[in-house]
């Protein structure tokens, strides 16, 4: 679905938060690689999609009313076959119904289990004075505890993206720490510039969170994404 349609639909439904699938559609549309994520409205569809995408898969609750999917027991990972998918689907639905009885649930998102990489966080926030600001950092514990992130004011150019990645203390992890393969830093730089260009040209976006992004020797993939619109 095109960006404008997604934004229009969210506006019509008076939603500030886009679903993960919508967020990934938008990001894919601007050339940022996301894990293939699709909506299954039923258990049968979940199985069909899992077979198409290929095991192992991840199932996540898809509901505009549930932002913290894990807290709702709404995430099941590493599902290796049809049985596991069916079972996971039921568990997710039961748990969601118990914890969020009033939530409007459109189904589950099915996505390929991304192969592990170095965890990255990338995002955008809007500052009252500086306007859109992009962020880059190491994900997981490193972002939560050490706040090892770099910011730049939009618009950024290639050189700014280079400096952002240079700036974080944990950059050695990206360069191939202890014999590990270095990650594809050029790809991460490119993603940052694309993100900046996108928010620079698209008014109405308040926040973007790509967390985690898995960075690999070749390329990177956005595993989870959130987009919040300006209300």
């Amino acid at each position, binding site marked *: 679905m095109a960006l404008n349609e997604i934004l229009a639909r969210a506006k019509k439904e008076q939603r500030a938060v886009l679903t993960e699938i919508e967020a990934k559609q938008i990001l894919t549309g601007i050339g940022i690689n996301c894990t293939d994520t699709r909506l299954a409205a039923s258990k049968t569809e979940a199985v069909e999609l899992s077979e198409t995408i290929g095991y192992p898969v991840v199932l996540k609750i898809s509901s505009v009313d549930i932002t913290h999917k894990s807290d709702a027991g709404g995430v099941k990972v590493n599902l290796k076959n049809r049985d596991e998918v069916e079972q996971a689907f039921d568990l997710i639905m039961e748990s969601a119904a118990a914890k969020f009885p009033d939530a409007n649930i459109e189904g589950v998102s099915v996505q390929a289990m991304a192969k592990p990489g170095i965890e990255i966080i990338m995002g955008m926030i809007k*500052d*009252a*004075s*500086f*306007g859109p*600001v992009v962020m880059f950092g190491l994900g997981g514990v490193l972002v939560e505890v050490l706040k090892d992130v*770099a*910011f*730049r*004011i939009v618009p*950024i150019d290639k050189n*700014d993206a280079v*400096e952002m990645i240079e*700036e974080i203390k944990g950059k050695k992890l990206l360069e191939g720490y202890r014999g590990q393969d270095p990650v594809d830093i050029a790809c991460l730089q490119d993603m940052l510039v694309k993100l900046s260009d996108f928010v620079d040209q698209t008014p109405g976006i308040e926040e973007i969170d790509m967390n985690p992004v898995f960075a690999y020797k070749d390329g990177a993939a956005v595993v989870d994404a959130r987009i919040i619109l300006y209300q």
Partner: protein
Amino acid sequence: MMELFFKPKSVAVVGASGTPGKLGYVIVKNIFDSDFAGNVYPVNPKSEEILGYKVYRSVTEIPGEVDLVVTALPTPKMTVATVQECAQKGVKAIIIESAGFAEMGGEGKVFQQQIVDIAKKNDIRVMGPNCSGIVSRDIVTSIYPIRKKVPRGNVVLIGQSGLLAAGMASDIVENESLNISKVCSFGNKCDVNENDLLEYFGNEDGIDVISMYLETISDGRGLTRIAKKVAAKKPVIFLSGGRTEAGARAAMSHTGSIASNARIVEAAARQTGMIMADDFTELKEFAKVFSTQPLPKGNRVAVITLAGSVGVNVSDLCANYGLELPKLTSETTEKLKDMFDTPVGNPVDLYFSVTKIGFTKTLETTFPNAFQDPNIDAAILILAGFEYTQEAVQKKIIQKIVQDVGKPVIVCMIVGYNKYKNIIMDEMGKELPVFPSLISGVKALSKLCEYGIRKQKLSA
């Protein structure tokens, strides 16, 4: 339009007073004492003459054109009325020094908005309120008496705080500690803000360094765009107040505005190439280094010292602040070897040389040799406040070497007797950047190197 603030042909002072000590008197006296050659029109309904200038009852009564109006009135209401009169008169630039506006909240905010509305409608630029205007050779509108002639220097200092700017200006002018051109305070910045001034001074020939203090950022996006352009041409040294939560609370009670997020401000500085200072002393010290020293091509530093321990400490500090201490070339060490009992290293410890041939002779030979070394981009010279140092300083030996070599240097004065130390710091401080601690000197030099390297990259 910004020219009207700095190079007006005529100026009116509203709220002028004939009573020495009153703000309205100090402003007129400051203008009187500056090189201002245009018409001065004090405005006060009750006086006839102040410092030889004819006094007018109102702005509208002034016969000729008025480029700039400076106001120091006791109430915000009177200020609003004056701005209205200025609009009638066709004045295009006003500096409002009175307080009692947005920084007070409540009614003050309303009065400030009234000023903004009148100014917008009539195409008037307003500096302030709650500021102390401009200190320069051409015109001084400060509420602090400036007793000496302001230099025609190459540094401008712009800042949000009125009293601070006035205080720094008097300090700098009185002590000749910085070669300033202008100090400009813009207070609540109801109209003229940092972006206007940064752009103006960025394009102003003869201004080589801009130092800026902000508590709030009016338009961060604009600041990023303008600062990037200006910082590519000349150094912009930037102190941002209210960056932490504690500071932000202070800023709220001070200028009535909420401070920006610290990390975003820092990111903007990195992105634009502005040089962040951490306090007011640094704002001044960095300006001193940037305005007196050439830009280094790299970060390779020679440390010249008289005590090994100090050399060790400086080496550590250099490492912490991204400066390298490379080995001197074999040509240099060969030249120097007779002066030393131990192999010549970096830090260059002059002690043995001094014991052999004396301080002055050592300075004249060893220092320039090490400083000229092709492996070296800049030097840190560590001196002590003793009699022989004072002699060398008064004979301008160090100053001359620095000028001849043409590379940047910073001087640290760490020990000695005050009777010598103070004279050395004052005298040498007029020409070279002299620091009272190793860390302040190393930090300042590291900023100079950082900027020099960035500029080389930009031009590559």
